[in-house]
């Protein structure tokens, strides 16, 4: 695309995609590999000029993995962080395992592997120096990318040793650093992509450009449970810039020369749909929940003791129901992907949390071997679980396959919000039996969900702390598609459970924190069935949060407590509400987290803060409703996300226990809803049991 010279004076740029601003997002390529870089292992290469290149294999979705992974490698390698070049690796199952962004699982999976990668290379560099200097390797030390022999004062940089070292056999079972010697891990290190992000360089999937590519938009059915009856594309095809209109399955794709042209032409499509399944409305879901709540055919998830006997002899029974709506993920970058289906293979570039799934589903769709499909991961403008699915990748593949051209497929915000894979809507019923002393002797949870699979997490607290317990569930199959949404299931279950425990503590006449601590002590001393969480770590975050927030000691604020263990990390939160002009205002949330070793203070703190903002925002406002199978919200004017003027202050504290690190992409979100709702209850005596809060009568009555 070259532009002609300007007639009106001034500098007119001859714009060329290959040389101008929009070079494709950086991915590893042959040129990088050929620039004198010597590979030490899958993660790292050292160039003779001293440049350290660390590959980050896992997709970067805003969780900070592209910064955290290289920190771990660099720590053991002992290099100057400012000399490290971080590169996103493409999908390569021969070099890497688990190239996934999901389940807060990257750090626990890779902690040892990354440290080994760095430490192994360091030993090889030391051995190369020992060979060259003819001194014992034990006399050699390193510091910031330099190998030193103290006795003789000799020094060589890693770059100078790289060629020799790369030829050596990698040692096995290398000794890793003591935590007390860490120089990088535990520091505050900035996002490695700050510069390109802050200057608007191409980084994201939607920024990808390939000379000659076409743009595509896909029209999906207008409602869940509908299929195409007829398509009249004649008007759309006649519009400027339109190359083709193609149909696959229940979708119609408009393909053309620019995003705006295909968007306008898509509006000119005349597609008729007909019923293909149940056209469900939110009112149907409410009725289905009520029916299933009393169904005798639920799946038992966990049973300890004799729950019916416990309820029979109870001095007091507490019973409550909690419900949440469907939620779209709403990443700021809508779904998009680049696909080029060629006779000899398929090239995929774009934002995906699971590149391997993108590859395998593409191969399956086209009936080719997965090794014919390459996947390069761009930085993602958020994902929140949406990009764990590959439906939108297949949209791009289908279109490219049909039009035989490289295609960038883009969903509009409306497509994205109405494109399914939602957080499922779920209703819970909790029942607790208390004895005369206020001990919880029985506990029942029934979860009913819509395409939620198992909406309970039967081994989570308070399981293990209650002698008589029954957790069961029922799932309603619906045409409305669902999928993992940041902290799947626990994103709402934690709110419901931690709010209910507050209700039980109140009924028992006990302090909410003491009530939970008593249960945790019981889980330690006389566990009921298996205990699949570490009660001591639960207690530690609880006590840290209580201490930092001054639990029960403050005047003028109302505090609410919440505690949750999910995705291997422990987070306790205390919300504070103040009454201002007779209205409750959420002023502050304290968070105490135990994720073991904190890799990067800056990234970790922001994950907690962002998780809390996300948890509070969706608890307050998030609401996706349906009418006859069609989503009733389609953009940010009717679907509200939390904004800057609506956030509380947040203070974050970490437990320092030296335990192997776990992830933080999810664990801070689940406890937030209850920290807020329990504090609002303290302030107003109104209990919020359904989300979003703004739709609750109890909430409307206090605002």
């Amino acid at each position: 695309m070259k532009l002609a010279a300007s007639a009106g004076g001034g500098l007119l740029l001859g714009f060329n995609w290959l040389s101008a601003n929009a070079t494709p997002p950086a991915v590893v390529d042959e040129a990088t590999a050929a620039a004198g870089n010597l590979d030490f292992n899958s993660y790292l290469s050292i160039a003779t000029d001293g440049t350290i290149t660390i590959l980050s294999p896992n997709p970067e979705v805003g969780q900070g993995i592209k910064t955290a992974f290289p920190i771990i490698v660099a720590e053991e390698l002992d290099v100057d962080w400012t000399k490290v070049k971080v590169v996103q690796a493409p999908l390569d199952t021969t070099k890497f395992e688990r190239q996934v962004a999901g389940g807060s699982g990257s750090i626990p999976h890779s902690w040892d592997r990354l440290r080994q990668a760095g430490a192994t290379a360091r030993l090889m560099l030391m051995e190369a120096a020992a060979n060259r200097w003819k001194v014992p390797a034990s006399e050699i030390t390193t510091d910031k990318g330099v190998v030193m022999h103290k006795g003789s004062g000799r020094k060589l940089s890693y770059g100078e040793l790289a060629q020799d070292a790369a030829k050596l056999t990698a040692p096995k079972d290398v000794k890793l650093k003591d935590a007390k010697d860490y120089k990088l891990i535990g520091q505050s290190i900035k996002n490695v992509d700050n510069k390109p992000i802050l200057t608007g360089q191409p980084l994201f999937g939607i920024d990808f450009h390939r000379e000659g590519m076409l743009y595509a938009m896909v029209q999906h059915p207008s409602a869940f449970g509908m299929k195409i009856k007829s398509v009249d594309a004649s008007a759309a095809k006649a519009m400027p810039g339109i190359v083709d209109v193609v149909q696959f399955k229940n979708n119609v794709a408009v393909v053309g020369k620019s995003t705006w042209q295909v968007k306008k032409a898509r509006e000119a499509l005349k597609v008729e749909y007909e019923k293909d399944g149940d056209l469900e409305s939110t009112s149907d879901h409410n009725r289905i929940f009520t029916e299933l709540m009393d169904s005798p055919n639920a799946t038992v998830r966990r049973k300890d003791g004799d729950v019916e006997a416990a309820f029979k002899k109870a001095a007091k029974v507490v019973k409550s129901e909690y419900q949440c709506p469907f939620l779209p993920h709403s990443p700021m970058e809508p779904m998009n992907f680049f696909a080029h289906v060629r006779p000899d293979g398929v090239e995929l570039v774009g934002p995906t949390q699971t590149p391997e799934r993108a590859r395998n589903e593409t191969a399956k769709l086209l009936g080719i071997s997965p090794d014919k499909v390459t996947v390069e991961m761009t930085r993602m403008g958020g994902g929140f679980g949406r990009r764990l699915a590959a439906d939108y990748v297949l949209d791009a593949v289908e279109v490219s396959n049909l039009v035989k051209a490289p295609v960038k497929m883009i969903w509009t915000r409306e497509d994205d919000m109405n494109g399914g894979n939602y957080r499922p809507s779920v209703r819970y019923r909790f029942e607790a039996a208390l004895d005369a002393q206020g001990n919880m002797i029985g506990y029942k949870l029934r979860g009913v969900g819509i395409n939620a699979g198992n909406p309970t997490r039967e081994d989570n607290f308070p399981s293990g702390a209650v002698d008589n317990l029954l957790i069961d569930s029922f799932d309603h199959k619906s045409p409305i598609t669902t999928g993992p949404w940041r902290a799947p299931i626990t994103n709402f279950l934690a709110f419901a459970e931690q709010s209910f425990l507050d209700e039980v503590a109140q009924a028992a006449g006990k302090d909410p924190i003491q009530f939970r601590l008593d249960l945790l002590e019981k889980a330690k001393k006389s566990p009921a069935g298996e205990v699949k969480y570490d009660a001591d770590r639960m207690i530690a975050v609880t006590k840290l949060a209580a201490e930092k927030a001054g639990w029960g000691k403050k005047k003028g604020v109302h505090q609410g407590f919440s505690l949750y263990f999910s995705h291997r990390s422990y987070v306790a939160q205390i919300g504070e509400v103040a009454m201002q002009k007779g209205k409750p205002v959420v002023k502050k949330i304290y968070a105490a987290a135990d994720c073991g070793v904190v890799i990067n203070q800056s990234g970790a703190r922001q994950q907690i803060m962002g998780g809390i903002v996300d948890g509070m925002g969706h608890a307050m406002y998030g609401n996706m409703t349906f009418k006859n199978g069609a989503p009733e919200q389609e953009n940010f004017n009717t679907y509200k996300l939390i904004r800057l003027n609506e956030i509380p202050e947040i203070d974050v504290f970490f437990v320092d226990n030296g335990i192997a690190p776990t992830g933080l992409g999810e664990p801070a979100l689940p406890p937030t809803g209850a920290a807020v709702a329990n504090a609002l209850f303290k302030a107003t005596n109104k209990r919020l049991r359904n989300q979003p809060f703004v739709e609750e009568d109890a909430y409307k009555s206090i605002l």
Partner: protein
Amino acid sequence: MALYKLQINGRSYQADVEPDTPLLWVLRDNLGLVGTKYGCGIAQCGACTVHINGEATRSCVLPVSAIGTSKVVTIEGLSAEGNHPVQQAWDEVDVPQCGYCQAGQIMTAAAFLKKNPKPNNEEIDAAMSGNICRCGTYHRIREAVKVASNKPAK
């Protein structure tokens, strides 16, 4: 289709597009300036914010035919070296998580601070609440605006 001459980041560009094409898509598809982001297309999220004659403007709903001789500045042209005080502050505070909304946040903040170089907290909140950050980096955005307001203006 019509030929539009545009003054963007101190340079002249031209694009042959339909008159109703939003500036956002001209920048992204025709001119290769992809720092300006698509988020909602209906001026609700602020990801597409650019400066039109110094005013923070949503480029997703601004037809190219309405720009005329107005001077457009995008994130790519906010500073030559990426060292505008707001960009510096964003780096110092380490604001970005995913980073997708940040160009729009920065453009909003830069236009705001030009008009109100020493804002108070309420003014910052009011100015920045039109831009959505789905990752929830709002605390750092707020802090970075304050940090930028304490830097010498460029």
